[in-house]
C-alpha cells in the first residue's frame, strides 16, 4: 500500500484505519476540552487578579507551553502505574490515560494564551466595565465571550499540538492495537516496520485532518465575525 492507498483506504471506509482516525479525534478533542476546562478559567484568573508571585506564574505558564511530551508521558505513566499513586484507577494503557497526558501537555498553552488574550482585552474594557459596575463574574464571562474568536484559535493551537504528539500517548497508551492505537503511534509503528509509504500516507491523512479542522474553524470565525459582531 502506498501513500495514496492510505487515503483510499480511509475513503473506502476501511474499518481498522477509520477506527484509528476516530480514536485520534476522540482523544484529542476530549483532551482539548479537559485542558480548556482548567486552562480557560485559570488563564482568566491570572489575567484579572493581582496576587503575590503573579509574575512567576506567568513566566512558568509561558515556559510550560514548551513541555516535552515525553516527559509529560513519563510523569503521567509514573502516576497512573499500578505502582504509582493513582494506580488504583486502572487508567494506564487506556484512552483515558492518553487524554490526561495530552490535556496536561496543552493546558499550559491554553492557560498562557488565554491570559494574554484576556489581559489585552481587559486593558481595553477596564474603564467601561468599572463605569458600568460589571460584577467580577460578569467581567470574566464578558471577556471570555468577547475573546471567543481568539480563544478558538488558542484551542486550535492546542488541538494541533495534541494531535501531532506521539511521545506521551505512546508511553501512557501503550499503542495497543484496536484500543489505544492512534494515528501518530501508528505512523511511528509503520515507520519502524519499514512501511514508509503507509507511514507517509497516514501522515498526510493527519495533516489533512488538522487542515480541515482549521479550515472549519476559520470559516466559522469569518461567518460569525460578519454576522454576530
Amino acid at each position, binding site marked *: 500500500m502506498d501513500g495514496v492507498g492510505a487515503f483510499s483506504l480511509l475513503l473506502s471506509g476501511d474499518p481498522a484505519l477509520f477506527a484509528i482516525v476516530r480514536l485520534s479525534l476522540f482523544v484529542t478533542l*476530549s483532551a482539548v*476540552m*479537559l485542558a*480548556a*476546562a482548567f486552562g*480557560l*478559567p485559570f488563564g482568566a484568573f491570572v489575567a484579572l487578579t493581582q496576587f503575590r508571585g503573579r509574575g512567576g506564574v506567568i513566566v512558568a505558564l509561558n515556559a510550560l507551553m514548551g513541555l516535552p511530551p515525553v516527559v509529560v508521558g513519563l510523569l503521567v505513566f509514573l502516576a497512573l*502505574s*499500578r*505502582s*504509582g499513586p493513582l*494506580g488504583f*484507577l*486502572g*487508567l*494506564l*494503557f*487506556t*484512552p*483515558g490515560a492518553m*487524554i*490526561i497526558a495530552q*490535556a496536561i501537555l496543552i493546558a499550559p498553552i491554553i492557560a498562557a494564551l488565554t491570559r494574554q488574550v484576556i489581559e489585552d482585552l481587559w486593558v481595553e474594557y477596564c474603564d467601561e466595565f468599572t463605569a458600568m459596575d460589571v460584577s467580577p*463574574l460578569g467581567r*470574566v*464571562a464578558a471577556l*471570555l465571550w468577547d475573546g471567543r474568536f481568539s480563544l478558538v484559535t488558542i484551542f486550535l493551537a492546542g488541538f494541533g499540538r495534541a494531535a501531532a504528539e506521539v511521545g506521551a500517548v505512546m508511553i501512557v497508551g*501503550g*499503542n*495497543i*492495537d484496536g*484500543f*489505544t492505537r492512534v494515528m501518530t503511534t501508528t505512523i511511528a*509503528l509503520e*515507520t*519502524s*516496520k*519499514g*512501511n*514508509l509509504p503507509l507511514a507517509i500516507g497516514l501522515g498526510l491523512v493527519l495533516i489533512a485532518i488538522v487542515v480541515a479542522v482549521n479550515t472549519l474553524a476559520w470559516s466559522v470565525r469569518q461567518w460569525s465575525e460578519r454576522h454576530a459582531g
Partner: protein
Amino acid sequence: MRTRLIAQLLAAAAVTIGASAPSAAQDKSIIVASTTSTQDSGLFSHLLPLFKAKTAIDVKVVAQGTGQALDTGRRGDADVVFVHAKAQEEKLVADGFGVKRFDVMYNDFVLIGPKPDPARIKGSKDILAALKAIHLAAAPFVSRGDKSGTHSAELALWKAAMLDPAGAKPAWYREIGQGMGAALNTSSAMGAYVLSDRGTWISFKNKDALEIVVEGDAKLFNQYGIVLVNPDKHSAVKKDLGQAFIDWMISKEGQSEIRSYRIEGQQLFFPNANPEHLKKTE
C-alpha cells in the same frame, strides 16, 4: 452561567475518562507486555483472534523493549510478560514479581548487512568470526543500544568474540537507542551491518539495500518465555485470564498455531514448550 458550563465540561471529561477505564467486573481482557520485535513480526495478529474466538478474552499487547516490558510487569501494569531474555525473566520470578516462567518458542537472529558487504562475510555460518571481520574492517555496525533482548543478545555475541565496541565506542559502531525497525531503517540508510531477529527482518518492508549475511549459527537462537505477573504483589493482576492465555500459548493448539504462522512462505517461530506441560494441558 459560565461556571455551570465549566462544571458540565468537567463532568463530561470525567465521564469520558472514566468510561475509557475498563471496569473490572465485566471486562474480559488482559494486558500482555511484550517486545516490539514480537509485535512487528505480526505473530500476535495471527494468534490473538484465534485465542479470542475460543475464550472471549481480549488480549491487549503493549509492545516495548524487553527491559521496559519486564519493568511494566514488575510494576503490575501488565498481567502477563512475554519476552525473550531468559535470565531476566528468571530474575523476575526469583524476585517474586512473576509466578513461573514457561518456554514458548524460539526464533533466531540473523546478521544483516549491506549488499556490497565491506567485511566480506556473506555466507558465513560463524557469527563470532563475522563480528571479528567487521571489527577488523571497521565496517559500520548499527546497535540497538536500547537494552532490548536483541541488544543484550548482540552484546553477548561481541563478548563471546572477545571484543567490546560498546565500551570502546569506535566510530564505526553506532548505538541508536531505538527499536528493531528503526535500526534496520538506519542500517539501510548508512550501509551498516545490524543484528536482527528473523521475524522483524522477514516482515520488514524497506529491505532494498540490505540482505542476510550470516545465519544458522546455534549461538543465534533466541528463546521466548512467558510469565504471569504475581497477583500476590499486585492485586489488580487478572490471574485466571492471564493464566488461561499462558496455558493456551503452550498448549498443543497454541504451539501448532505458532508453527503455522508464516510470512512469504517462511516460518518465523519454532514452538518448543516443555512436552510434559503439553500433555498436561490436553
